[in-house]
């Protein structure tokens, strides 16, 4: 029997965040310019598995994805069992910068999707000098709640089942079944209240509408790519952000949804590779 191994290496990093010890899972593949990958709300770094397995990306990039605390194989900090998890813009920003420092990443490219795309806008605004370029996937400045978030965390609704069912329609219609259901499985595995806690940032705390036009793309190039079938962050919302920022480059990806790198890598990579090429040639 022959087996194959992916070129992806995972490690656990011990890091103090917000004055508390954290055990954070980090995986990476490739070498070259660091490409720091930020996953969506309620999911984890496995969303970037295709980038880590594509030689067109890893030949020139060190692709790194960490699971945020509470997500994937990262633990919540000690004492979590009596807390309500709520992600804020300040915590999210600090976490990313601390992890970059711990990994000694020199001006990485950041790529983030959904909440990762939103925080990418915050980073582009507040810390442009720390990044070579920023790529926002499904990035909008704000999303109004469109369902009662309490359904994500209550004992008479299964959190994993409802989380996946809420986002299932955000996957584009052409996604291969294997990738679609892999993407949804990550949601089904989320811890209680974690997806809801992430959405506190996405729908309440992380509203950047009033400031997004101040992003200076001369300090840090900004690329936005959004899937046509995303009704959480719609193409119109991404275009509104892009049109308010001079120098921002935007692509609307036909047939793709809210999880382009995970739901349909074969269709997504032809959009991403020219962006990486452009950043590399600067």
């Amino acid at each position, binding site marked *: 029997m022959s087996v194959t191994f992916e070129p992806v290496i995972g490690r656990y990093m011990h890091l103090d965040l917000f004055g508390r010890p954290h055990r954070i899972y980090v995986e990476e593949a490739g070498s070259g310019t660091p490409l720091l990958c930020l996953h969506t709300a309620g999911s984890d770094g496995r969303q970037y598995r295709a980038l880590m397995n594509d030689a067109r990306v890893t030949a020139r990039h060190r692709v790194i994805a960490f699971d945020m605390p509470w997500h994937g194989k990262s633990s919540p900090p000690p004492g979590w069992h009596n807390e309500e998890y709520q992600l804020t813009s300040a915590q999210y920003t600090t976490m990313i910068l601390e992890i970059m420092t711990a990994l000694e990443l020199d001006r990485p490219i950041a790529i983030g999707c959904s909440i990762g795309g939103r925080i990418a806008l915050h980073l582009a605004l507040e810390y442009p000098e720390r990044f070579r370029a920023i790529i926002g996937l499904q990035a909008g400045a704000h999303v109004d709640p*469109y369902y009662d978030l309490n359904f994500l965390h209550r004992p*008479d*609704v299964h959190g994993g089942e409802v989380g996946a069912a809420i986002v299932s*329609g*955000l996957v584009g219609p052409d996604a291969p079944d294997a990738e679609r259901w892999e993407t949804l499985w990550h949601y089904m595995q989320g811890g209680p209240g974690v997806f809801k806690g992430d959405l506190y940032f996405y729908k309440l705390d992380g509203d950047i509408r009033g400031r997004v036009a101040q992003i200076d793309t001369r300090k840090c190039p900004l690329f936005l790519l959004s899937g046509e079938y995303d*009704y959480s962050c719609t193409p119109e919302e991404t275009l509104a952000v892009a049109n308010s920022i001079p120098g921002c480059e935007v692509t609307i990806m036909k047939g793709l949804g809210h999880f382009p790198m995970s739901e349909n890598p074969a269709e997504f990579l032809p959009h991403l590779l020219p962006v990486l090429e452009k950043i590399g040639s600067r």
Partner: protein
Amino acid sequence: MIETLKARVNADEALVRRGRFLTTTFLIEVGLTAWLIQIFEGRVVSVTAGPFVMPSSSFALRAAEEEWQKFWLSRPPPGSNDLMALIKRRVLKAEGNLQIFMANLRYFKEALAKLRQAGAGA
């Protein structure tokens, strides 16, 4: 067309199995036309057309006929491809005891998507 829901749902063993803890009656309104759909342990028992004098249901899903028609296309356009997309655009009203709807959200999405021409999943 909604009458075919019973046969289409019940023919999908995996869908019925996932709904095995679901027993309820819900109301669906397609424009001015109302239907009561009764489910017993994941199987659609009856689909009854209105008008009703005093319909009893756990929850109701109400949208204009043209919105449902777009949802039921074999390849719905963006914004019409999912019940949550319709809710996000405020064109589908979900009212009543939504715990039943949300606890079985995958079931209801896939059951109603059975009315698409190709019978594809949501």
